[in-house]
């Protein structure tokens, strides 16, 4: 199951990240996972939120450059080796990862790994075949 990630272009200007986060905060949007890809002169903020459609509209209306990307959220046990075991499956099956980031869940002993794949469909097939738990959009909202 694919979930939605929002990517936001962050100009290298003081307070830009704060502007995004306070906008979301003021509008009751909760960030579930976050990472920033930075280059020498700008950043791209990647977030998984509990209500992507509302959030992306909000960001665009406020003048941010934002768009939606399909990613996959994989659930693994929050213990040493959790990530490595999933990565082995991908490596063995030639599944190419473009980027990923992770965070722990609040009320369980699980960790959530957000992956952007070169070939999302292939990745999902491999995940299903190997019985690796994938989290749905609905489950993200409820986290």
């Amino acid at each position, binding site marked *: 199951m694919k979930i939605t990630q929002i990517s936001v272009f962050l100009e290298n200007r003081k307070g830009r990240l704060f502007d995004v986060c306070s906008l979301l905060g003021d509008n009751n949007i909760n960030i579930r996972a976050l990472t920033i890809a*930075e280059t020498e002169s700008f950043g*791209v903020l990647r977030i998984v939120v509990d209500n992507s459609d509302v959030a992306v509209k909000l960001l665009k209306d406020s003048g941010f450059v934002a768009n939606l990307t399909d990613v996959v959220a994989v659930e693994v046990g929050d213990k040493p080796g959790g990530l490595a075991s999933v990565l082995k499956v991908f490596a063995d099956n030639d599944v190419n990862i*473009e980027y990923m980031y992770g965070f722990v869940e609040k009320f369980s002993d699980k960790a959530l790994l957000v992956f952007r794949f070169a070939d999302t469909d292939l990745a999902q097939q491999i995940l299903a075949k190997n019985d690796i738990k994938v989290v749905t959009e609905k489950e993200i909202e409820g986290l």
Partner: protein
Amino acid sequence: MDIPYWNKEIETADRATIEKIQLERLGKTLSCALRSPFYKRMLGEAGISSGDGIKSLDDLRRIPFTTKDDLRKSFPKGLLSVDMQEVVRIHSSSGTTGIPTVIYFSMEDVKNWTDLVARCIFSTGATSKDVFQNMMTYGLFTGGLGLHYGAEAVGMTIIPIGGGNTKRQIKVMKDFHTTVLHITPSYLLHIHSRLGDVGISRDELTISKAFVGAEPHSENTRLKIEELLGIDAYNSYGLSELNGPGVAFECVYKKDMHVWEDAYIVEIIDPETGEVIEDGREGEVVLTNLIRHATPILRYRTRDLAFLHPEKCECGRTHRRMSRILGRTDDMLIINGVNVFPSQIEEKIMQIPEVGTNYQIYVDKKGSLDRLTVKVEIYPKLFMGEASQLDALKNKIKEELRSSIVINAVIELHEPGALPVSEGKAQRVVDQRSKL
């Protein structure tokens, strides 16, 4: 002072003699020009159908001005006045709308140009004993080859190194005991600041003279160069439309540049009205080339602003001196000696779909060198969410600009609305460099 003359007779000829030479050469130039499609039409419309059509130098004013636009529109052969077979050299400059301008030289044209440049070099006191490091760009740009040929005629030992690679330039200066440089003033100051990095001290170098040109610079900058480096710096003026370097050059007195009036008719005009104005007043420099036949040029509006000194120079030369260039009548920028029009930049970046409609050109100094920054707003709809896409966009813009305007610009990506909104052209270009 002992004044060196390459051609004393011409350089100290009285005004009457100079004017006689000008009139005679103007007639020959007109005959040539009439063989080119562009001038045949223009002169025809002005009622001139032969070289004898001009009876006095005042008659020159019957001829309309030639502009850069005329040259672009005539590309490639509108101004060519001889058979291509007679052309031995082609020089070209990039144009604002991607249309270059081209100048053709016959064997005799190159000889005349060479002799003129030799005259310039010799008037500074440089001789065949000198070792000359030619640090200007070779190629279609006239600066490199122009000085090269002139220096060779003088008999100097030439190192045809061209530009760039500062470390190597300094090493070469040391290894070969360079005494004379041809360079832009900003690059020369930059070289000075890098001596420490390269581990070579000023005392290990034997430089005594620099011919500086290709970008406007103040008297203070020249004095700073002379003081920091302990050399004499001579101002050089030229443009490819009128051959290249060699149009005007300073003598040993360094009190502004002698325009060689046996080779050029120089007029200063009011840029608004086109009226020729008197010596001493600032206006637009208009030049007629009397010694080039493959591509004649008549009353060319250079868009450079300067004035002519009415007084004679102490060196005894009777060719008038032109002040340093004080500005432009258009919006052309000169970045480290390279000419670029803001419209060239605009044209290139607007071709890229991911760039929004707002941009800004920002020019400042990084140390002694000019730095060009192009700030663009990205177009939201085309943002795919990947940092690599934006990186690729930045590199694409940088590469497009580098290949078209030959400048390595710094590219900044901004969000829509981040750059000031432009009202007309004024705010598109911000030039933080101090005025001359």
